[in-house]
């Protein structure tokens, strides 16, 4: 992996040095050392600290120069002034640095220090991630520079999701959540103050990364807006890119001298940028998690037609409402389809869209309805299973999964309810079908697969980014 303006080595480094390594358990630098070894990183690890000869049985070097070999990534967990001092010295053998230390732009008077850091990096041709960041978690090559103990924050398994975030705490939180949800992760980059590597570099890298199937962006602010839009467009053309924007309440972009200024805030411009790039925007953490769950299970679809199947009329209607709000197409079934369904389904069923199987629904009715819908060109289905229907058995889960596999079109399960219902979630998810406990969440997840929301423009061009 060596794209993204020559920063690919951060993810598969041959050698990692920990500057300021410590033998003391619980200290940040020791946590990192532990994590690197535990994640299964199999390149060279060089602890650096003039105070020690050995740490945990590993040779410890007095300085970076003493290592005498190329260091792909030097991890700095030292006070900012110390970082500057070391980078100012002999570091010719360092390709890249992850500066975890804070005390730069984010603090008073830290801005000058950060400018100096930028200058040194350029002069010495060292790529920098950070400062004020957690660095990299790479499940593919087993790189883990996050200074959070594994006992407290679980690491996700290997998978197709890559996450780019300014916020370190978000990186930790989402990593823990993804591990708990069972969602696999390829690469997480917490890039903090972005003195060098920024989201555009990372997006370019992930666009070409075969291990990354979809990308999640956590955005506080973007400085080089146009570069970001261009890199995000390139990435979104190849794989879904989902973003959450925080800090929306920024003051308007100009004094209220004219409407153009008065009517828009900075957030509107971010949204415009997301649209331009073909990024799917999600609203809040809950949606973010749901988006990941649904993208984990399925690929983006290239149509807009949603079939709703339910065994409760009311919930079907609220789902149809939610679909309309998000611009999803809940078109009716054809006359032929309706006729065929009427002859097969229970007498009181509504054979429209939503197809309401009513509380007399039997397992087979679900399969019949789903199959008819997929045969008639619906792009995805949201299937509501309310376990109150007396004739339903867990066989319905296998059957829905079977139809889903046969047509290879997404089926999202919406199943609100109490204890009995919740105990069934796992059975659906074992079959690879994500379950949502509210109709709105199910529909929003469907909208993600349809690329709705901020990417409507691209979709309407018939050239949606990933189509």
């Amino acid at each position, binding site marked *: 992996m060596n794209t993204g303006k020559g920063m690919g080595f951060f993810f598969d480094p041959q050698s990692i040095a920990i500057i300021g390594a410590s033998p003391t358990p619980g200290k940040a630098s020791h946590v990192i050392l532990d994590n690197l070894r535990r994640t299964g990183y199999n390149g060279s690890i060089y602890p650096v600290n003039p105070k020690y000869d050995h740490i945990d049985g590993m040779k410890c070097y007095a300085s970076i120069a003493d290592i005498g070999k190329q260091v792909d990534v030097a991890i700095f967990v030292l006070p900012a002034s110390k970082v500057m001092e070391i980078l100012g010295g002999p570091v010719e053998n360092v390709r890249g640095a992850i500066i975890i230390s804070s005390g730069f732009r984010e603090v008073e008077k830290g801005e000058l220090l950060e400018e100096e850091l930028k200058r040194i990096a350029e002069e010495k041709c060292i790529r920098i991630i950070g400062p004020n960041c957690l660095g990299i978690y790479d499940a593919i090559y087993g790189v883990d520079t996050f200074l959070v103990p594994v006992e407290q924050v679980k690491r996700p398994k290997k998978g197709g999701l890559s996450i780019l975030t300014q916020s370190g705490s978000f990186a930790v939180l989402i990593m823990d959540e993804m591990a708990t949800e069972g969602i696999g992760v390829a690469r997480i980059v917490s890039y903090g103050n972005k003195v060098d590597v920024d989201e555009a570099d990372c997006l370019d890298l992930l666009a070409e990364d075969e291990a990354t199937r979809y990308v999640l962006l956590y955005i506080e602010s973007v400085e080089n*807006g146009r570069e970001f839009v261009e890199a995000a467009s390139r990435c979104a053309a190849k794989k879904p890119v989902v973003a959450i924007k925080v800090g929306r309440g920024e003051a308007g972009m*100009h004094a209220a001298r004219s409407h153009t*200024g008065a009517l828009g805030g900075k957030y509107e411009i971010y949204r415009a940028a997301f649209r331009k790039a073909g990024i799917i925007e999600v609203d809040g953490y809950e949606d973010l998690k749901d988006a990941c769950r649904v993208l984990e299970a399925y690929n983006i679809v290239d149509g807009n037609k949603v079939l709703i199947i339910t065994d409760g009329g009311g919930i079907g209607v609220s789902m149809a409402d939610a679909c309309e709000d998000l611009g999803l197409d809940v078109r009716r079934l054809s006359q032929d389809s309706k006729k065929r369904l009427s002859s097969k389904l229970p007498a009181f069923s509504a054979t429209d869209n939503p197809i309401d199987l009513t509380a007399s629904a039997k397992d087979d009715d679900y399969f019949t309805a789903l199959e008819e819908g997929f045969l008639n060109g619906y792009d995805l289905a949201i299937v509501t299973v309310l376990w109150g229907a007396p004739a339903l058995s867990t066989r319905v889960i296998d059957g829905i999964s079977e139809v889903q596999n046969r047509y290879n079109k997404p089926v999202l399960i919406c199943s609100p309810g109490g204890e009995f219902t919740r105990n069934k979630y796992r059975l659906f998810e074992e079959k690879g079908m994500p379950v949502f406990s509210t109709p709105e969440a199910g529909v929003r997840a469907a909208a993600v697969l349809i690329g709705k929301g901020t990417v409507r423009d691209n979709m309407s061009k018939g050239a949606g980014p990933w189509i």
Partner: protein
Amino acid sequence: MDLKVVDSIINNAQNEGRDHLFETEAKTLISQWDIPVPGSVLVKGSEFPDISVDSIEPPFILKVVSRNILHKTEVGGVISDLGDMDDVRNAIIRMKKDIEKNAPQARIEGFLLEEFVPVGVEVIIGGTRDPQFGPVMMFGTGGVMVELMKDVSFRLAPLDKSESMAMMEDLRGYPLLTGYRGSKPVDREQLASVIMKVSDIITKIKEIREIEINPLFAYEDGVMAVDARVILELEER
């Protein structure tokens, strides 16, 4: 378009130390992109008794031209429904008086005498330059409700026709454009074309920080830029 005209308008304003164009200048600028503006005559301070109005048809609307007045209506700087030259002369006298009272510091450069245009569906088209993302376009429903409802949509410039159309569809007020309660649908093709032209202006003319056509009247067959405002980048920025 004639970029020489555009350059000379902008240079002239900058030389005079103005950070905005007069309405007349802004309209001349957008008409270089063939955005329709009402027929008009510029009346300079002292020459009003001899206005030649052969080129425009009544009824007229009179607007003050002043570097110090950005919101003309608030100071009595707009008088409409003028049928003939006597009306115009009286209106000029009244307007001078009102402005002396409401905005005593304002320097009056002249008066813009325009053909009155029939009311259409009011929309706003704006372009602005964002420090991070560069040129940005805004489209919104206009009229008195606009500030209350903030029914606007944003896109990065430059944009194409489908993006322009999508901006309209974003609005809650979209039915006003497609025909609502018996009103005829407006010319959305023309609207899209004006959005793209303003996008072209804000993208190409770096001296412009903000441009706005407000209101733009949209009709069944065509559009008309009733008012236009251009704010220039300040030198020290």
